C-alpha cells in the first residue's frame, strides 16, 4: 500500500513534468468520459420526461380515441356535402360504462377547432366539450372563477372556461370573467380561466403533443346540442361544405386500482379487454385506438435502454480512441526515457518495478482525465440549457408552431445518472490499465545495457 502510494506520487511528478503533453494526452479520455455521462444523462432525462408525461396522463387511465380514417372512405351525404362519419359512438360509451370492471370514472370528450370572437378579437382555439372531471384528469388549475359543474351540464348552460392564452387573445385589456364570447353566432359566458400549463410532449407516436394554453372548455351536453348538433359539424371552406360526424373524440376510463406499481397487469388486462371490445365494434373502419399510458411507460423504458446502449456505445468508442491516444504517447515516452529505464534497472529496479511505474503513470493519466470528464459531465444539464437557448433562438421560429420533436427537446432536462459516474470513472481507469500494459511491458522488457547505451 505504502509502495503503491509512493509509485503514484512519482507518477504524478513525472506527468507534471510535461504538463501540456499530459493534458493533451488526457483530452481523449476527458471527452470520452464526458460524452458517456452526457449521453446517459440525456437518455435519462428523456425517459424521466416520458415518465412524467405518462403520470400526467394517469397511469390508472385507459384512453380510447377516435381516429380519422383516410379521407376517401367518408360516406357520402348529398352531392355537395360529404359527411365524414367515424369514431366513438354513444353505444361504445354505454358498453364501456357497463362492462369495464373497476371503473371509477369515465370522461367523454368532443373537441374541434372553431373560430371564436369577442367583438373584433378573434382566434381559432381548440373547443373542448367535456365533463367536469376533465379538469382534474388533465391537471388544469383555475386562475380565476371556476370550472363548470354537473349542474351546468344538466342545465345545458351556455358557459365556458378559457385557457390563459385564449384569455389574453380575446380579452387583452379586461378581465374575461362574465364577459361573453361568440362561437358560431351564439354567445357563451366565461365563468373561469385556467392557469398556464406546460404543454405535454408526444409519446411514442400514439399521442400527439398538446398545448393546453389555447383551449376553450364547454360543458359536454351544451357542446353536443349547440355545436355538435345531430353529432355533425359543418364547416364552410372556399365555397364547399365539409361535414364531420363524430360523437366523441376520446373517452377516458379511470380504473380503480391503487396497487398499480405492484400489479400493473390488472390494468393491462382490462385494457386488453377494452381493446377487444373496440376491435369488434369497429372491425371494418378501424377508427378507434386504445392507448394505455402504463404501456407507454414500458415503451419509454425500452426506449431509454436502447438509447443507453446506442449512445453509450458511441461514447465508448470515443473512450477507446482516447485510450489508443494514451497508449501512443506512452510508447513514445518509453522510447524517450529508455536511458532512465536503464539507470533504474542498474540501480536495482526489477522488471515488475518498471512495469508498475509506467502502468501507474498511464492509469493516473487516464484516471485524471476521467475525473475531469466526470466534472464536465456533471455540468451537462447546465450546458444543455445553453444549447436549448441557442436552438430556440437560431433554429426554431419563435412565432411558428414547433414540431413534436422540438417540443420534446425543449422541455427535456438531462439528468446525470448517479450510477454512470462510478461506471465512467471505472472505465477510464480500466482504459489506462488495458492500454498501459503494452507500453509498460515494452519498457520492462528492455535490456538494461541496451537501455543505458540509448542516446
Amino acid at each position, binding site marked *: 500500500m505504502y509502495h503503491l502510494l509512493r509509485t503514484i506520487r512519482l507518477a504524478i511528478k513525472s506527468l507534471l513534468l510535461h504538463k501540456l503533453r499530459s493534458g493533451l494526452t488526457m483530452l481523449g479520455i476527458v471527452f470520452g468520459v464526458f460524452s458517456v455521462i452526457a449521453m446517459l444523462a440525456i437518455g435519462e432525462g428523456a425517459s424521466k420526461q416520458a415518465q412524467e408525461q405518462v403520470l400526467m396522463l394517469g397511469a390508472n387511465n385507459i384512453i380510447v380515441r377516435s381516429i380519422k380514417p383516410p379521407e376517401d372512405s367518408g360516406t357520402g351525404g348529398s352531392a355537395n356535402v360529404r359527411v365524414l362519419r367515424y369514431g366513438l359512438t354513444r353505444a361504445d360509451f354505454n358498453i364501456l360504462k357497463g362492462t369495464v370492471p373497476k371503473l371509477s370514472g369515465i370522461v367523454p370528450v368532443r373537441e374541434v377547432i372553431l373560430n371564436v370572437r369577442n367583438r373584433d378579437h378573434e382566434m381559432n382555439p381548440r373547443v373542448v366539450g367535456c365533463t367536469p372531471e376533465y379538469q382534474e384528469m388533465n391537471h388544469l388549475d383555475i386562475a380565476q372563477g371556476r370550472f363548470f359543474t354537473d349542474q351546468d351540464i344538466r342545465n345545458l348552460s351556455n358557459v365556458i372556461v378559457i385557457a390563459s392564452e385564449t384569455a389574453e387573445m380575446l380579452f387583452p385589456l379586461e378581465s374575461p370573467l362574465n364577459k361573453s364570447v361568440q362561437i358560431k353566432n351564439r354567445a357563451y359566458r366565461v365563468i373561469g380561466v385556467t392557469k398556464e400549463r406546460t404543454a405535454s410532449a408526444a409519446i411514442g407516436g400514439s399521442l400527439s403533443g398538446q398545448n393546453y394554453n389555447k383551449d376553450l372548455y364547454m360543458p359536454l351536453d351544451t357542446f353536443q346540442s349547440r355545436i355538435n348538433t345531430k353529432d355533425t359539424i359543418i364547416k364552410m371552406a372556399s365555397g364547399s361544405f365539409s361535414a364531420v360526424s363524430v360523437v366523441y373524440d376520446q373517452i377516458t376510463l379511470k380504473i380503480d386500482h391503487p396497487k398499480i406499481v405492484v400489479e400493473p397487469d390488472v390494468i393491462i388486462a382490462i385494457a386488453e379487454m377494452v381493446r377487444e371490445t373496440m376491435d369488434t365494434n369497429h372491425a371494418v373502419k378501424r377508427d378507434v385506438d386504445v392507448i394505455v399510458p402504463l404501456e407507454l411507460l414500458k415503451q419509454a423504458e425500452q426506449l431509454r435502454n436502447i438509447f443507453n446502449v446506442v449512445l453509450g456505445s458511441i461514447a465508448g468508442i470515443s473512450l477507446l480512441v482516447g485510450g489508443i491516444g494514451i497508449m501512443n504517447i506512452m510508447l513514445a515516452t518509453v522510447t524517450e526515457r529508455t536511458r532512465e529505464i536503464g539507470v533504474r534497472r542498474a*540501480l536495482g*529496479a526489477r522488471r515488475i518495478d518498471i512495469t508498475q511505474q509506467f502502468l501507474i503513470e498511464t492509469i493516473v493519466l487516464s484516471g485524471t482525465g476521467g475525473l475531469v470528464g466526470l466534472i464536465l459531465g456533471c455540468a451537462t444539464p447546465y450546458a444543455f440549457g445553453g444549447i436549448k437557448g441557442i436552438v430556440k433562438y437560431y433554429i426554431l421560429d419563435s412565432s411558428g408552431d414547433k414540431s413534436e420533436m422540438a417540443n420534446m427537446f425543449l422541455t427535456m432536462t438531462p439528468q446525470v445518472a448517479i450510477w454512470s459516474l462510478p461506471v465512467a470513472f471505472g472505465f477510464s481507469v480500466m482504459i489506462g490499465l488495458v492500454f498501459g500494459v503494452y507500453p509498460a511491458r515494452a519498457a520492462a522488457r528492455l535490456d*538494461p*545495457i541496451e537501455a543505458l547505451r540509448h542516446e
Partner: protein
Amino acid sequence: MELTAKLVNLQKHYDLGTIVVKALRGVSLDIPEGDFLAIMGSSGSGKSTMLNLLGGLDRPTSGEYYLRGQNVATLSDDEISAIRNTLIGFIFQSFNLVAQYSVLENIAVPLLYRPGYPPISSADEDRCNELAKMVGLGDRTDHKPYQLSGGQQQRVAIARALMNDPAIIMADEPTGNLDSKTGEEILGMLKSLNEQGRTIIMVTHEVEVAEQAKSHIYMKDGLIAGHGIFRG
C-alpha cells in the same frame, strides 16, 4: 583473503546474424575483497563488456562468474536486480542522473527498489542529506541535473551509488567526461571509499587515473593481455 569476484573462462559473444562479435574470449580473474582494480585497454577491447558482466547487468555466453561465492548464472533476473540494488553501486561515464529529479531525489532512487520495499524512513532521508554533504553538494540538494556541472553531476552519481551502502562499486570511465582536476577529485573520493573497505572496479584508459588503483589488468581483443600498467 576472501574473493569478491571470480571469473572462470568467461566469454561474451554478440550474434549479429552475419557475424559473431566475440567481445570477451575467455577471461579468468580473481578479484579479492577490498581491491581497487583498474581495467585498462584500447577501445573495443571489451572493458565495458566485462564490467557489465561483473555488475550483473548482463549475462555471459559461457564461463562462470562467482560473486561472493555465488554462481550468478543460477540467479533469476529479480535476484540479480536485488544484488545490484544492495551489493553494487554503479558510476557511469555519462553520469546518468534522472533528469526530472532533484539532487536529493536522484540520490534516493536506490531506496525505491530495496527488496521488500520498506518505507523511506527519516533515517534514510538523513542519510541522503549526509551523502549530499559528503560529496560537497549539501547546499544544492534542490537543484536539477541540468543546473549542475559535469563534476557535480558525477558527485551526485557517487552519492547515489553509496545510498544502499554497497560493498562493491563499479565505475565505467568515471572521469572520462571530466577535466583532469575534477577527475582527480572524483578519483580521490573513490580512493577514500576503497580505504573504507569497499571493493572498487574501475574501467579507464588513462594511465594517470589507473595509477591510483591497487591492481591493474590490461585487456586486448577480449582477453586479459597482462597484469600491471602498460605504458604506450
